[in-house]
C-alpha cells in the first residue's frame, strides 16, 4: 500500500473505533437498565407492576399505573398546545412570510431549544403556577401547568422540522396549485400539508419523545402526587419524576423498581423513535 492508502486506512479504523465506542455506551446503559430492573418485574409480575394502582415502596407495593397515566396526560396536553401552535408557526413562516423574516426567526426559534429545562420549570413555578391557582383553582401545581410548559418546550422541535419539511416540497406542487386557481390557504391545506405529511408527523413524534422524557421542569410544577388526577387542575406525577425524586435514597427492591420504570420509559421512547425513523424513510423513499 502507498503511504496515502495507509493513512486512509488508519483514519477509517480510528473513526470506526470511535463510532463503536459511542454505540457501546448506549448498549452498556441499555444492558444495565434491563439487568437491574427485570428481577423486580419478574418477582411481582408485569401486570401488577404496570397496572398496580399503589406505589408505596416501604410496603413493597410497586404499581406504576398512576405515573403511566400521569406521563400520558401531560404529554397529550403538551401536544394539544404544541401541535396547533407549532404547525401554525411553521406554515406562517414558510407560506405567509417573506424569506427575510424566516431567515431571522427560524434561528431564534431554534435557540429556544437550548434553554435549560430548569429555567422553564422556574418560570413555570414563579409565573404560571400562581396564575393557575388564583384564576382557575386548585393548588396550581397541576396537569395544566405541566402541559403548558411542556407544550412550549416542544415548540422548537415541531416548528423547526416542520419548516424544513414544508420547504422541501417541490416548488411545482405549489405553483401548479396556484396556477389552477387555488388560494394560498387552499394550497397550504390541500397540497403542502399532505406533501410534507411524513416530515410533520416525524416532528410531532420527536416532540412527543421530548415531552415524555422531560424531568426537571415537570418535578417543579406538576405537584408529584401519586394519584390519578381527576381534573387538569389536580397534581400529577410522571414516570420520569418518580425516578428522579426517589433514586437518590432508594435501596434494594425499591431501586430495582425504579430501574424497571426506566425500562418502561426506554420501551416507549424506542417505539416512538422507530416510528419516526420509519416515517422519515418513507418520505425519503418517495422523493
Amino acid at each position, binding site marked *: 500500500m502507498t503511504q496515502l492508502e495507509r493513512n486512509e486506512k488508519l483514519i477509517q479504523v480510528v473513526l470506526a473505533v470511535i463510532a463503536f465506542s459511542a454505540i457501546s455506551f448506549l448498549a452498556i446503559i441499555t444492558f444495565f437498565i434491563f439487568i437491574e430492573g427485570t428481577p423486580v418485574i419478574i418477582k411481582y409480575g408485569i401486570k401488577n407492576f404496570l397496572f398496580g394502582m399503589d406505589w408505596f415502596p416501604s410496603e413493597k407495593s410497586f404499581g406504576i399505573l398512576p405515573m403511566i397515566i400521569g406521563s400520558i396526560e401531560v404529554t397529550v396536553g403538551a401536544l394539544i398546545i404544541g401541535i396547533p401552535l407549532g404547525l401554525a408557526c411553521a406554515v406562517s413562516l414558510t407560506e405567509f412570510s417573506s424569506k427575510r423574516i424566516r431567515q431571522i426567526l427560524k434561528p431564534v426559534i431554534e435557540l429556544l431549544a437550548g434553554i435549560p429545562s430548569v429555567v422553564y420549570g422556574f418560570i413555570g413555578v414563579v409565573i404560571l403556577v*400562581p396564575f393557575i391557582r388564583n384564576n382557575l383553582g386548585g393548588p*396550581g401545581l397541576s396537569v395544566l401547568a405541566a402541559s403548558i410548559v411542556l407544550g412550549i418546550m416542544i415548540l422548537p422541535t415541531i416548528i423547526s422540522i416542520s419548516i424544513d419539511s414544508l420547504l422541501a416540497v417541490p416548488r411545482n406542487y405549489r405553483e401548479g396549485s396556484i396556477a389552477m386557481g387555488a388560494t394560498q390557504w387552499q394550497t397550504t391545506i390541500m397540497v403542502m400539508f399532505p406533501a410534507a405529511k411524513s416530515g410533520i408527523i416525524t416532528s410531532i413524534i420527536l416532540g412527543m419523545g421530548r415531552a415524555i422524557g422531560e424531568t426537571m421542569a415537570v*418535578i417543579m410544577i406538576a405537584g408529584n402526587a*401519586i*394519584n390519578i388526577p381527576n381534573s387538569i387542575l389536580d397534581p400529577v406525577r410522571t414516570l420520569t419524576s418518580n425516578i428522579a*425524586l*426517589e433514586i437518590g*435514597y432508594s435501596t434494594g427492591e425499591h431501586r430495582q423498581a425504579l430501574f424497571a420504570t426506566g425500562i418502561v420509559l426506554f420501551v416507549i421512547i424506542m417505539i416512538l423513535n422507530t416510528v419516526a425513523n420509519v416515517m422519515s424513510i418513507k418520505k425519503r423513499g418517495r422523493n
Partner: protein
Amino acid sequence: MRRLIFVIFILALFITGCSQGVSHKEIIIAGSTSVEPFADKWAEVYMEKYPDIIVNVQGSGSSAGIQAAISGVADIGTCSRELKPEEKDLTEIIVAYDGLAIIVNSNNKTGDLTIEQIKQIFSGEIRNWQEFGGGNKVINVVTREEGSGTRGAFQELVMKKNRIFKGAIVQDSNGTVREIVATDPNAIGYISLGLLNDKVKALSLGGIPATNENITTKRYSLVRPFLFVTKNTPTGEVKNFIDFVLSQEGQGLIREAGLISVN
C-alpha cells in the same frame, strides 16, 4: 512540527487535569436538607479557621445521606430523623435538636390545631378548611418525598401508623415546601423549625406554640435530632470537624440560628 506541538499541548492538558492540585483535604458532607443550611454555616466558619481544609456540603435528603455514608461517597452523612434498626451499625452523633413546625400560609385564619387534627388532614380524612372555621376551601396538603428525614420524623411523631394520603403534593426539600405554603393560601405542610421565616406561620399544637423554650421543656412534642452519621468511628480531619461542631463555638452558631444545642 505544528502537529507535534499540538499533541504535546493536548497531553499537557490531560496531565494537569489528572493531578490532585494543591493538597487540600476535603470533607464531603451529604444528606438532610434540614441540616444543610446549618452544616453550611459550620463549614463556612470552619474553613475560615483552617484554610487548607475544604468542607463540601450537599443536600439530597436524609436517607440519601445515609446511603452516601455507607457507600463511602460522603465522609459524613447528615440525617434529621432517628436511625432505623437496619442502619444502627453506623456511628451516629447527635449535633443538634430541631423542632418540626407545621406551617400554613400567613393569611390563614387557623393558628392552632391538635396533633390528632393534623393527622386527619394529612391522611386525607379532612379535606376542607371549613372544618376548622375557615372558608369553603380544599386543603392543599404538601409533604416531602419518602426518603426525607423530615418526613420520617413527621410520620413517626404525628402520623404513627397512618399513611400520608396519595393526593398530597410532594416536594423534595424544606425550601420548596416553605415556598409553596408561602404562596398558596390554602396549603399546609411541615418543615424544620430552624427554617421558619416570616412568610409562613407555624401552628401551635393544642395551644402550645413552637418556641425554643417549649421545645427544651418538652411541652412542644414534635422534636427530632440532627445526626451526623459516619461509617466507622470518625478519625483525623473528620473528627476535628465534628469536635468543632460539638464545641461551644459550633453549638453557639446554631443556637443563634434557631436550633436547640446538645449541651
